[in-house]
C-alpha cells in the first residue's frame, strides 16, 4: 500500500473539498512525501546525467565545426571506418571476457569466504575488497609500473626462470591480456561481495534437504545455490557489463589504445577523436554508440529478472 494516506479517510466526504484541503491531503499522501524526499536526487540526476546525455545527442547531430545539423551523418561516417568496427569488436571482447572472469572468480572466492568461520571472515572480506576500493586510476598506475617496458617487475621476476622479456603492452595479444587482467583484478571483488551477500540469504534448510536427498556438492550448487542466486547474478552481470563497456581509465593509462589501436574501447577512442583531435561531434557519436548495445543487454537481463520475480 504505497499510495495510502497516513490518516484513515473520513466516511462522509463533502462533494467538493476546498482547495486547501486537497493540497493538505496531497501533502499527506505517502507518494507525495516520497517524491519530495527524492526530488533533490532527481534534480541532481537531471543536471548531471540527463542534461549531458541530451546535450551529447545534440552534439552527435552536428558537423565537425559544430555549425551545421547533419542528422545521422556522423554515424553513417563511422560505419564506413575500419577503426570504428575494430573498436566495436574490441569493446565486446574486453567487456564480455572481463565480466565472465570477474563473475567466475567472484563466485569461487565468495564460496571460499562463505565457508570461513564467522570469526575470521570479516578480515578476509576486508582484504579481498581492497582492489575495488582503491581509485582505479591510482591502482592502474601501479600496474603500469609492473608492466613498464624498461623496469617491468614481472619481466624481472620471469627472467629468473629464463622466461621473457614479454612485451606486456607492446604486442596486441599481451596488451589485450594486460588490460583485461587489470579490469578483472579491479572488478572481481564487487562480484565477490554481491555473491557473498546472496549466498548468506540462501536458507540452510534447502541444503539440509538436498543433503538428505543425497545431493553431492555439484548438485547442491546447480540445484540450490545457482537458482537462489539467479537474480543477483543477472543484475550484477548487467551492472558490470555497463561499467566495463564504458571503461576508460585502465586502457587510457596502460596503453592509450595502442599498439596500433588494438586496445581502444569506445570511451578511449571517443576521447581521442573528440578531445585530442577536436572533433567533438564525432567523439559524442562514438560514445553514444554504446547506448543501443547496452540497452539491448539491459532489456534481456531485466526482462528475465522481472519474469522470475513475478513467478515467485
Amino acid at each position, binding site marked *: 500500500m504505497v499510495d495510502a494516506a497516513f490518516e484513515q479517510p473520513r466516511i462522509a466526504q463533502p462533494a467538493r473539498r476546498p482547495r486547501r484541503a486537497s493540497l493538505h491531503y496531497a501533502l499527506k499522501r505517502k507518494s507525495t512525501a516520497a517524491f519530495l524526499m527524492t526530488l533533490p536526487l532527481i534534480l541532481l540526476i537531471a543536471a548531471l546525467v540527463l542534461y549531458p546525455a541530451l546535450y551529447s545527442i545534440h552534439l552527435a547531430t552536428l558537423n565537425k565545426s559544430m555549425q551545421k545539423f547533419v542528422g545521422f551523418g556522423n554515424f553513417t*561516417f563511422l560505419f564506413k571506418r575500419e577503426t570504428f568496427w575494430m573498436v566495436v569488436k574490441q569493446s565486446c571482447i574486453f567487456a564480455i571476457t572481463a565480466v565472465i572472469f570477474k563473475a567466475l572468480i567472484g563466485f569461487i572466492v565468495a564460496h571460499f569466504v562463505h565457508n570461513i568461520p564467522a570469526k575470521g571472515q570479516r578480515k578476509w572480506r576486508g582484504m579481498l575488497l581492497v582492489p575495488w576500493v582503491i581509485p582505479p586510476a591510482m591502482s592502474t598506475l601501479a600496474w603500469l609500473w609492473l608492466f613498464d617496458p624498461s*623496469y617491468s617487475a614481472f619481466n624481472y621476476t620471469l627472467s629468473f626462470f629464463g622466461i621473457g622479456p614479454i612485451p606486456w603492452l*607492446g604486442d596486441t595479444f599481451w596488451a589485450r591480456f594486460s588490460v583485461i587482467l587489470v579490469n578483472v583484478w579491479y572488478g572481481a571483488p564487487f562480484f565477490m561481495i554481491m555473491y557473498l551477500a546472496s549466498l548468506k540469504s540462501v536458507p540452510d534448510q534447502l541444503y539440509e534437504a538436498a543433503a538428505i536427498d543425497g545431493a553431492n556438492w555439484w548438485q547442491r550448487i546447480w540445484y540450490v545455490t545457482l537458482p537462489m542466486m539467479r537474480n543477483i547474478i543477472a543484475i550484477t552481470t548487467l551492472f558490470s557489463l555497463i561499467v566495463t563497456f564504458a571503461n576508460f581509465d585502465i586502457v587510457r593509462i596502460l596503453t592509450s589504445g595502442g599498439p596500433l589501436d588494438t586496445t581502444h574501447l569506445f570511451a578511449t577512442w571517443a576521447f581521442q577523436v573528440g578531445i585530442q*583531435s*577536436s572533433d567533438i561531434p564525432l567523439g559524442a557519436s562514438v560514445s553514444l554508440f554504446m547506448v543501443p548495445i547496452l540497452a539491448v543487454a539491459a532489456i534481456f537481463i531485466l526482462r528475465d529478472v522481472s519474469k522470475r520475480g513475478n513467478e515467485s
Partner: protein
Amino acid sequence: MSRRKLTRRQFVAATALTTTALVAAPYVRGAHAAGKVSIGFWDHWVPGANDASTALVNEWAAKEKVEVSIDYITSNNKKLELTVAAEAQAKSGHDILQMPTWWPHAYAENLEPVNDLMEPVIKQNGDVNGTVKYLGQRDGKWLAVPATVGSQIKGPCSRIDLMKKYAGIDVQEMYPAGSPPKADNWTMETFLKAAEACHKGGYPFGIGLGETTDSVDTAGAIFQAFGAELVNAKGDVTVKTDEVRQALEFYKKLIAVLPPDAPSWDDASNNKWLISGKGAMILNPPSAWAVAKRDAPQIAEQCWTHGFPAGPKGRFAPFLPYFWGAWSFGKNKEAAKSLLTYLSQPSSIEKFVAASGGYDLPAYANMTKLKTWAEEGPPKGTLFHYPDPYNQQTMSIAASPAPPKIAQQIYFQATLTKLALRYAQGQKLEDALAWAEGECEGFMRS
C-alpha cells in the same frame, strides 16, 4: 516610530543630483581600476618555473592596476586541452588561456585576433619560425601569441660516451658549445648506422613507436626529412608517393634496431630509457637530462643535446610551440592583450628561459642565444645547440603542411607511427599505404 516619506519629486531630484555628481566627478584610479583578468597557464613541470610566470604577471598587474588571478592547469591526461574545449563550449572562462600546438586553429572562431600585438612584438624580437606561423595564423590573422613557456624542440639528446664508443661519433665535436655545428655528415644514413652500432653494443636508441606526441614528433621529422607528406598543403591525400615509400623503408630499418617494446612507449618511456642508462640516444627536450641531473648525475654528465640528422630534403627538428590565446568572449580583452605584450618582451622571455633551466624556447629569431643555454650543465654547454642558435634546422611539426584541422587528426591518431609500424611488422607496403590513405580520407570531414 515615525518614518519619513520620500515624495516622487524628492526622488527624481535626488537621482538627478547623484547622476550629475557621478558624471562630473574626477576619475580616481583605484587599486584595481582597470578591472580583472583571469589567466589559465600550463602547469610547468620544472619546480619553480611557475613562480617566474606569477612574478611577471604580478609586476604587470601592479603597473596597470589590474586584479589578476592565475590557475596553473596540468597537461597530464589532457587536462589543459579539456579546459580549452570546455571553455570554448561554455563561452566563458579565463581571459587568457594557454593552448598547446593545434588548439588555436581548432578554436579559431572563439579567439580574439592579436595582429595588433604580434606586429610590434615581431619587429622587436625577430621573426617567428614557419611552424609557429602555420599553427598560430589563419588567413594572415594571428589567432594567439606564441608562448615561451612550454615551447620545445624534441631534438637528439645523446650519450657522449656511448656514441663515441659504439658509433664512433663525437657529438661534442660535431656540435661544439659556443660555435657553429660541423654537422654536414650528420645525415639520416649516419644516424641509422649509429643506431645499428649502438643496438649491437647493447645500448639501442630510445625512440618510441606509440601514439603519444614524442613518438609522433620523431616520425614527423623523419618523414619531412624525406619530403614525405600524407596530405599536402592544399589538402590532397598524397600517401602513395615515392617519398613516403622511402621514409617507410628507412623506418623499417630503424625499427629493427629499436627496443622491442617501443610500440607501447609513452612520453615518459624515452626519458626513463636515457636515465636508466640503457640507451645511447633519445629524441626529447632536455627534460630527461634535467631529471638525470637529480636522479642519475653520472648519466647527466654524459648527455649532449644537439641537432637532428639531415635527410634528402633537409634537416627538420620537431618544434612544439605553446600559445597564449585571448577568448573573443573574454571580459577584459584589452587588459589581456596588454599582459600578453608584457609577457612577450625580451626581458620577460629571458626570465622564462632562466626559470625553466633552458627548457622553454621562445619562437623569435633574436632570442636563441640567451646565456642560460650557454651556461647550463653539466657538462657545460650541453644545451647550447638546443635552441638551434645558427638556424641550421627547419622547425617543423608532424603532419604539416596539411591544413591544420586535417593535420591535427593525423597527429593525434598517430597515423605516421602506425603506418611505419604496420610496414615494419610485416604488412605489405601497398596495404599499409592503402590503410593510411583511407585514414587520411576520413580526416577530411569539415
